[in-house]
C-alpha cells in the first residue's frame, strides 16, 4: 500500500460550527476573556477565600448537632405549616387566574391583539424570580403570608398559562367545529370540547406546580412574605446556627417528600 507523499492532500481541517477556525478561536477567546473579566470584577482575594474556607469548618461545627428549644420547635412547626398552606392556596388561586390568560395566549383561539397581551403577561410573570415578586408584594400588602400567596400565585399564572396555552394550541379543532356546527355558542364550545380534552393535563400540571410552590413557599419568608423562611433568616441573624441547620434539614425533608409525593400522584393521574 504505497502512498507517494505529495500525491494526496495531507491537509485536513475539521469543519467547525463557526465560519472558520479564526472565528472559532475568537469566540473562544471572547468567552474566556469575559469569564476572566468576571472573575477580576468580583475581586476575590485569595486571603478572603481561604478565611472563608476556614470559616466553613467552624460554621459546620457550630451547626452540629441540629437543635431547637421547645419554643423554637413550635415556631418552626408553625412556619412549616404556614408554608404548606400558602403553597396550596397560591396554586389554586394561580390556576384559576391562569385559565383565562391561557385562552388569551392560545393562537388558535384568541384574536391577534389579545394573543399578544396574553403572551406578554406570561413573559413578564415568568421572567421575575419569585423573591422579586414577593418583595414587591410585601410592600404592596404588608408583611405576612398574604404577600407570599400573591407572589406564588403570580408565578403560577406564568407557568400554568404558558403550558396550558400550548396544550390548547395542540387540541383537535375538529371537535370544536363539530359542536359549533350543531349550533353551540362559543362558551359551549369551550366547555364541551376544549375542557374535556385538557383536564387530565391540568390535573397533572397542578400537582407539579404545587410541588414547585411548596419549595418556593419555604423561602419567600426571607423577604417577609410568610412561611418558614423568616424563622430561618432570624436564626442566621442571631447566630443560632444549630437551629438554622435544623430548619434547613426540615426544609430539605419537606421538599424531598413533596417531590416524591408529586411524582407519585402524577403517575397515578396519567
Amino acid at each position: 500500500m504505497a502512498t507517494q507523499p505529495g500525491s494526496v492532500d495531507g491537509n485536513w481541517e475539521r469543519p467547525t460550527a463557526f465560519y472558520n477556525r479564526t472565528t472559532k478561536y475568537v469566540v473562544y477567546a471572547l468567552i474566556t476573556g469575559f469569564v476572566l473579566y468576571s472573575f477580576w470584577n468580583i475581586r476575590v482575594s485569595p486571603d478572603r477565600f481561604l478565611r472563608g474556607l476556614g470559616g466553613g469548618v467552624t460554621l459546620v461545627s457550630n451547626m452540629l448537632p441540629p437543635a431547637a428549644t421547645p419554643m423554637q420547635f413550635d415556631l418552626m412547626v408553625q412556619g412549616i405549616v404556614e408554608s404548606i398552606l400558602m403553597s396550596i392556596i397560591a396554586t389554586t388561586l394561580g390556576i384559576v387566574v391562569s385559565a383565562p390568560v391561557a385562552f388569551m395566549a392560545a393562537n388558535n383561539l384568541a384574536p391577534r391583539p389579545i394573543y399578544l397581551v396574553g403572551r406578554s403577561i406570561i413573559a413578564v410573570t415568568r421572567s421575575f424570580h419569585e423573591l422579586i415578586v414577593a418583595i414587591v408584594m410585601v410592600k404592596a400588602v404588608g408583611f405576612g403570608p398574604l404577600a407570599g400567596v400573591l407572589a406564588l400565585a403570580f408565578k403560577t399564572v406564568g407557568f400554568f398559562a404558558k403550558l396550558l396555552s400550548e396544550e390548547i394550541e395542540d387540541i383537535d379543532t375538529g371537535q370544536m367545529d363539530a359542536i359549533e356546527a350543531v349550533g353551540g355558542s362559543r362558551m359551549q364550545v369551550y366547555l364541551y370540547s376544549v375542557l374535556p380534552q385538557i383536564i387530565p393535563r391540568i390535573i397533572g400540571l397542578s400537582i407539579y406546580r404545587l410541588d414547585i410552590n411548596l419549595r418556593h413557599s419555604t423561602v419567600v419568608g426571607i423577604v417577609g412574605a410568610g412561611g418558614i423562611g423568616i424563622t430561618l433568616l432570624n436564626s442566621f441573624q442571631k447566630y443560632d446556627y444549630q437551629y438554622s441547620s435544623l430548619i434547613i434539614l426540615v426544609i430539605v425533608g419537606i421538599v424531598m417528600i413533596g417531590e416524591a409525593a408529586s411524582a407519585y400522584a402524577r403517575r397515578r393521574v396519567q
Partner: protein
Amino acid sequence: MASKSEFSGADSGAEWERFDTRQRLIRYFLTLGVLVILAAAWRSMDINYGYVASAPNEVMDLLTRMYPPNVIYTSEIVGPLLETINISILGTALAIVMALPVAFLSASNTTPNRWTYLFGKFIVSFTRSVNVIIWALIFVVLFGPGALAGVLAIAVRSVGFTAKLLGEAIEEIDRGPVEAISATGASTFQMFIYGIIPQIKPAFISVATFRWDINVRASTIIGFVGAGGIGVALQTNINYFKWDAVLTILIAILGIVLVSEGISAYLRGKVS
C-alpha cells in the same frame, strides 16, 4: 383490568355514562376533599381581611407610583447589572467544574463502586433541595457580603441539577464506539476524548446554557441577603420607597432575563 371500565357501559343499558358509579363517587370525594383542605388552609392562615380588601388598591397605587420609570437612575445600575451577569456566568462555570466528577460518580456505568454511586446521588439530591437563597445565606456568613458568596451559592445550588442531567447523558453512552476506539490501541485518555466526549457534548452544552439561563434569574435575587448583584440595589430602593427607580431596575432585569433566555435557546438549538 383495563377492559372493566370500557365495558361498564353495557350494564347501564341504553343510558350512556361517562364514568361508572364507583368512579363518580371517588371523583366526588376527591373534589370535596380538595375544597375542604382549601377552606381549612385559607381559614387557618389568619389573614387580615383588611389587607385583602385593600390589596388591589395598594397594588394599583404602587404601580402609579412606579410609573414613569426613573430614566436617570439607569446609569447607576449598569454596574450591578454587569455584576449580576458575572455572578451567573462564574457560578455556572464553577458548577460545571464541580458537577463533572459528580456526574461520573452518579452514572451507573462510570461510577467505581456502589458507595461512590450513592455518594454521587446524595450530592445531587442534597444540593438540589436547598434553595439558592439559603445557600446564599450560608455563604454570606462564610465569605462576608458580596459577589463571591453569590457565585458560590449559585454554583453549589447548580451542581446537583447539572450533575444529574450530565449523569443521565453519560448513562446513555453507546459502549460500542468507545470499545472500538480502545481496540485501535488508544490510551484511556484518548478513548475519553474520541469515544466519550463527542457523545456527551450536546447534552453538556445544552445543560450548561440551560442552567445559565436559570442562574441569571437566581443572581437577580441573591442580593436580598447580601450576596451581590442587582438584588442589593433593588432591595435598597424598595426600602426607601423609591418606586420609580424600582421600576427601572425591574425593566432592566426583564431585559437581561429575556436576552439570556434568547441566547440560551439559540445555543441549545445549534447543537443537535
